[in-house]
């Protein structure tokens, strides 16, 4: 029961009787039924001879007793409530994003304001029923005083986020009922993502709980002329020397179907060009690239703007991906079949990361010229094909006991040396056949190898020593990744001491000045120290390895036969191949830039780590770093700073980009170590790629939320709003009406009256 009462300003007082006894309704029904049963029982238990009047009097008294007892039990209370009518609100969201002013042609923002001005009277009328909340939105949401306040309210060109604006709107005044939303926009949202088949997931919009009425503001399409790159997409990872696609999607608006040129470039250098036919305003092309450099790649795709293009800034896009090595491509040239060749081959063939091409001299040049070729299953050694056509396809070339002259390889050794200086790798393995006067280790290759062979005048018998010996790990070899077969330095030392004896060694004059000897002979001497057995060297951009014995196979067969470990030789060659190919995991200077890509207005994190030539950390070393990029005016910019490594040889810092697009971080360390890492800073102006209006999106949002959609005007009559007004309780007061001594006295009096009446008629 509601009783109108006096109300304060904007508020009403309501009265209501309630039960304060807290009795469960079902229990109350049971009690009332029991009371009625008691009344009936009382009536029936009275002797009809008492007369009707007495029976009625006694039963009436009993009924009154039970009634008063029930009254006390139920505890009736008078409740006074002060309530207020809460007015619902209608939110008007006005798109003020970059696309509203930069979409080409007449400004959509001006059109938007014209639409609002034309509907002013209707909106004022709507404001009499609902509270009108005005907002401007772009990448964010800003409260506005009215239609004229919108541009000043946002001024945000960092994208268009319709969903985000609605989410903030709902969350901002969750306690105030939302009757509906009126959304004016071009629909050029920058944040909504589509599924692989182009579908939008609009389920979130249904959860708003209020209809979103959308008004499309598309301006004058005829005046908008724009050719732009919608997207340049590549897989996040690519394999070196393997082709990977870069798919470029172009759109045009207001331009006739045409042929557009698309250019793929890196650091300003054009890599490829494509002609794309734009049909119906859309075109697509695919560039196939075969990256050779490991690490992060950043490429630029651009479409030269036609003269009538009103937004030339959106004709360029960047794409970044990580280049990994799928396989090490190894060329294994052996001068003769031998056990050493056999077990190197076994190791490389059994390693899935190696793509092995091998050529073994099965028959000497002398045999070929004197013994005929009947019945042979051999092929000629393809010298020209390998060294003239395919040399650069390999990561590592292994010359094992190989003598170049008889097979015409000698004239290509200078080319192989150049291949190493340019970033390739070579290993020369074996005895006097490798390091003697005719071996691959002499001649032009000697300039890039770690070992210095003896001159041709030295007698052949002095070129090797056939005394079995146990190879000795040097101080550098204990830490170098090639000979670090187990991670613990002490265990590694013990392991090398336990290995099988080798059959002998090739004797060489000494070591190149910048080479590193990892394993040497325990007592034989070269001119400049102990006879080197395994040595490495970095030459230009490449690397080289020398193994001055032809019996490392003992580590794979003889040693394991006698109970030694079986994986020493495979482990050695795997590490050697990884080091020779500058596998990033084995680099001395390591530079990481995260995240990729770096967010617009975000920061990049640079992490640098440097080890010395023996792979020990370089604490306290000072390195120099340069970040370079091209600014918006096409001028090269640089930011240079020094970095000092900490006690563990590491350095880390945050860096704030000053522009968008491809960047390069170059770090230079002691000993000529240098690493360049590319990274991409995202374009801060998301609007550039989302200038085209998207009216279907607006219609779909309206449909999903139960709102209406119109184009170019506000149709107030079609506007859908919910009756969301409600009453808000401001205060409450309970007045108990049972809690009085009279109620008890009445109950006692009635009991006493009934008792007296019963006595009077002779009942006990």
């Amino acid at each position, binding site marked *: 029961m509601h009783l109108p009462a006096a109300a304060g300003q904007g508020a009403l007082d309501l009265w209501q009787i309630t039960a304060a006894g807290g009795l469960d309704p079902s229990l109350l029904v049971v009690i009332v039924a029991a009371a009625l049963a008691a009344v009936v029982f009382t009536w029936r238990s009275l002797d009809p001879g008492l007369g009707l009047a007495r029976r009625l009097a006694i039963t009436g008294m009993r009924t009154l007793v039970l009634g008063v007892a029930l009254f006390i039990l139920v505890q009736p209370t008078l409740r006074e409530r002060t309530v207020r009518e809460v007015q619902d609100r209608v939110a008007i969201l006005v798109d003020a994003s970059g696309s509203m002013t930069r979409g080409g042609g007449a400004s959509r923002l001006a059109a938007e304001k014209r639409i609002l001005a034309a509907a002013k009277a209707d909106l004022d009328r709507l404001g009499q029923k609902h509270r009108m909340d005005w907002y401007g939105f772009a990448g964010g949401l800003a409260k506005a005083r009215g239609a004229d306040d919108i541009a000043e309210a946002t001024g945000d060109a960092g994208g268009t986020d319709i969903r985000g604006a609605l989410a903030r709107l709902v969350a901002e005044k969750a306690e105030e009922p939302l009757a509906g939303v009126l959304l004016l926009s071009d629909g050029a949202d920058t944040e909504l993502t589509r599924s692989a088949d182009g579908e939008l997931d609009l389920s979130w919009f249904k959860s708003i709980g209020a209809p979103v009425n959308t008004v499309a503001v598309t301006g004058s399409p005829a005046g908008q002329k724009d050719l732009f790159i919608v997207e340049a997409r590549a897989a996040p990872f690519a394999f070196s020397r393997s082709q990977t696609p870069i798919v470029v999607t172009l759109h045009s608006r207001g331009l006739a179907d045409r042929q557009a040129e698309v250019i793929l470039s890196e650091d300003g250098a054009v890599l490829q060009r494509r002609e794309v036919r734009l049909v119906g305003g859309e075109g697509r092309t695919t560039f196939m690239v075969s990256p050779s450099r490991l690490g992060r790649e950043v490429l630029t795709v651009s479409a030269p703007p036609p003269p009538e293009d009103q937004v030339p800034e959106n004709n360029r896009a960047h794409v970044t991906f990580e280049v990994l090595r799928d396989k090490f491509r190894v060329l294994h040239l052996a001068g003769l079949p031998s056990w050493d060749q056999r077990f190197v081959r076994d190791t490389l063939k059994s390693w899935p990361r190696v793509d092995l091409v091998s050529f073994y001299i099965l028959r000497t040049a002398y045999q070929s010229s004197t013994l005929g070729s009947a019945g042979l299953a*051999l092929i000629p050694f*393809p010298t020209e094909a390998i060294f003239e056509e395919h040399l650069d396809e390999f990561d590592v070339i292994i010359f094992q006991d190989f003598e170049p002259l008889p097979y015409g390889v000698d004239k290509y050794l200078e080319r192989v040396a150049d291949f190493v200086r340019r970033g390739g790798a070579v290993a020369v393995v074996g005895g006097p056949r490798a390091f003697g006067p005719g071996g691959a280790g002499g001649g032009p290759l000697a300039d890039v190898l770690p070992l210095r062979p003896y001159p041709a005048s030295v007698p052949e018998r002095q070129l090797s020593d056939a005394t079995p010996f146990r190879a000795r790990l040097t101080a550098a070899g204990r830490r170098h990744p090639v000979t670090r077969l187990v991670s613990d330095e002490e265990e590694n030392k013990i392991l090398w001491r336990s290995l099988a004896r080798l059959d002998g060694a090739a004797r060489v004059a000494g070591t190149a000045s910048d080479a590193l000897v990892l394993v040497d002979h325990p007592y034989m001497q070269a001119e400049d120290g102990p006879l080197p057995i395994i040595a490495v060297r970095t030459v230009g951009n490449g690397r080289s390895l020398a193994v001055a014995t032809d019996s490392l196979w003992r580590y794979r067969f003889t040693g394991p036969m006698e109970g030694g470990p079986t994986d020493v030789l495979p482990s050695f060659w795997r590490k050697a191949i990884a080091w020779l190919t500058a596998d990033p995991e084995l680099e001395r200077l390591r530079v990481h830039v995260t995240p990729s890509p770096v967010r617009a207005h975000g920061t990049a994190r640079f992490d640098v780590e440097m080890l010395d030539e023996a792979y020990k950390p370089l604490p306290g070393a000072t390195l120099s770093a340069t970040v370079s990029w091209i600014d918006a005016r096409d001028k090269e910019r640089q930011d240079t700073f020094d970095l000092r490594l900490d006690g563990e040889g590491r350095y880390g810092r945050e860096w704030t980009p000053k522009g968008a697009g491809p960047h390069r971080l170059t770090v230079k360390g002691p000993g000529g170590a240098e690493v360049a890492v590319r990274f991409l800073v995202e374009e801060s102006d998301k609007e550039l790629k989302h200038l085209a209006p998207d009216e279907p999106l607006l219609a779909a949002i309206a449909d999903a939320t139960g709102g209406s959609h119109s184009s170019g005007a506000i149709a107030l009559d079609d506007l859908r709003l919910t009756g969301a007004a409600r009453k808000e309780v401001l205060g409450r007061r309970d007045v108990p009406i049972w809690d009085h001594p009279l109620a008890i006295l009445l109950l006692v009096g009635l009991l006493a009256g009934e008792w007296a009446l019963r006595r009077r008629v002779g009942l006990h």
Partner: protein
Amino acid sequence: MKENPRNSDGAASTPFSRRKLLAGGCALGALALLPSRSLGVGPASQVGVLQLVYPGGNWRPRPTALRRLMWEVHKRTAVDSTLEPVEAKPEIGLLSTSPLAYLSGDRAFPDFEQPAIEALRRFLKLGGTLILDPAFAPDGDTGGLARSLDRFVGAVLPDSPPKPVPAVHVLYRAFYAVERPVGRVEGPPSLLGCELDGRLAVIRANHDLGGAWARDNMGNWELEVVPGGERQRENAFRLGVNLVLYALCQGYKDEETHRRFGRPATGG
């Protein structure tokens, strides 16, 4: 034949004799005819073959066969090989010296002791290759040799039973293009092989290859080939060369690059 006494290295030594002296002289003379080659680090770097010595039976029915084969390998291929086989009991220390072993016989032999079986199994699993070349008597396997070999192979590689080596296997193209295996006898159309990790670890020829290879120190063939002809003997040598080259180069001739780069000719 009596077992030879052994020296401290485990290799068999034979008593000095005029016949040995003559053989040595012939071998030196033959070496002088070889093309000049620069050498490896030392003799241990050369490719040698172990001739397995076992008790009972006859472990060396064709005493000159392996020397003659290795001479042909040396003469025809780039392999830097030792001419004399190393006689070796199937023991860890002896088997660890070379990954190529040869076992022959002309009569039944007792089962190998368990340590010998385990040593041979380890030898094969670590990459060794074992060639079985039974020298059956002219009237066939009257001595139960085949059953001894079956038991031997079953004990060493119980999980890799011998199977015919198909005609397309790289073994038949390892150096020569061999259409069909033949030895002193024409024998079955294919070799038998036991595979380990994708390679033939045990290769068995039931063609008496050693009988075709055997040549005395005066240059005379020791046995006639059946059905006959020098072409058959030459093919037996070609198969022997292929066996050695397969042990060294494995599937090298099967590589795709050989089809891409080459055409049948001479070279590698």
